[in-house]
């Protein structure tokens, strides 16, 4: 069976991590596949994974009673899906749905949290990487909120 270690090593998210940490992370990783239309997770469910998309597209959505499912952003190849596994109380705040057939690597959050607690250097590296993603997505969301293309903007 093909090891996921080379894929994780080559992924930009893990760029610069030392081999020992890559090996630790590989122990928490597995291949997953989602058919088009399949929910990867739903708002309110326990969050114990995150995903590196290898192929396909995932929509982060929110259901509203009057307007139905609203897509907040889409993520595709190379992107990370999910950080609620990292922050108590470990529940998803939004839905994630594969809007195309999607292949990903799932990282077991419980497994990784334990390894991060045991090895704070690994924990710091993981946190730094997630902080970077959060910063980028927050900046994008702020621009989205400006509704720049509205006539009055």
């Amino acid at each position, binding site marked *: 069976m093909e090891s996921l270690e080379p894929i994780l090593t080559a992924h930009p998210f893990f760029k610069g991590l030392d081999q020992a940490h890559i090996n630790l992370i590989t122990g928490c990783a597995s291949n997953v596949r989602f058919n088009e239309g399949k929910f990867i997770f739903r708002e309110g469910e326990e969050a114990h994974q995150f995903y590196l998309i290898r192929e396909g597209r995932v929509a982060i959505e929110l259901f509203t009673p009057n307007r139905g499912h609203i897509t907040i952003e889409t993520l595709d190849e190379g992107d990370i899906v999910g950080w609620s596994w990292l922050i108590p109380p470990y529940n998803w705040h939004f839905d994630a749905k594969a809007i195309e057939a999607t292949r990903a690597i799932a990282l077991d959050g419980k497994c990784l949290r334990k390894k991060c607690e045991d090895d704070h250097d690994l924990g710091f590296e993981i946190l730094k990487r997630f902080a970077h993603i959060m910063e980028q997505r927050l900046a994008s969301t702020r621009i989205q909120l400006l509704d*720049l293309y509205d006539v009055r903007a």
Partner: protein
Amino acid sequence: MFEHNVSTEPLYIEGSPFLPEPYVIRRVKRETEDTFTLELEPKPSAHPFTFLPGQFNMVYVYGVGEIPISISGDPSARGVLVHTTRAVGSVTKAMDRLKKGDMIGIRGPYGIPWPVDEAVGKDVVIVAGGIGLAPLRPSLYTLLQNRDRYGKVVLLYGTRTPADILFREELEQWRARFDLDVFVTVDRAMAGWKGNVGVVTTLIAKSPFDPRNAVAMICGPEVMMRFTAMELIKRGVDGQQIYVSMERNMECGVGLCGHCQYGHHFVCKDGPVFRYGSIKDLIMKWEI
């Protein structure tokens, strides 16, 4: 310089730079709920009209007023002048009510064009936001008509919702080409939309171009252009190779009246296309 770029001097009729030349509306095309395209035909007696990608005309709706609008058509097409705009002010709303056969006044073309000549031999990244795709369409026509002179050509287009996508049919045709990479994103969408959702800047990191040998042309809301330029620079594009199209209150079109003054520039004469490096200090100033 490409062959079709013959004479782009503004048309001064009877010696007056302010006298519009009458054009007849040949076709009105609804693009989205609030944007439309007018195809205009000069009167038989009119002077020949040529323009460069990125230039604009002063468009006069008789009895209502005159406004600057970028030309959105093909620079190589003879005998037709194309303008795409959004019905948002009194003049554009009046334009929106015009029909085939109605008359409209044109002065122009004015302004500094997109650097399609300077981009020869390089990758070209076109980033458009909303109605900003209209002033960039002429440069895309030119790039595609001279495709072998350029490296990769990438179009990144962001707009508000799927219903606001401009030139949808053309975008689909462009997407089908093997020599052009087209990425479209919307700021918001309901379930059912299979494309990208997110701001246009999020497309830059993954776009297939060489930042060390690329020219970027950006047109859209000013904030969008600022963030796009920053993201391109982060990717490694030289700020001097980034061009933006500024919008100010152009009135005379020839740098006389001062209405479009932007720092020490007049947007009508020194722009609307500027090298980002030459205005990046101005673009951050609140007072301008």
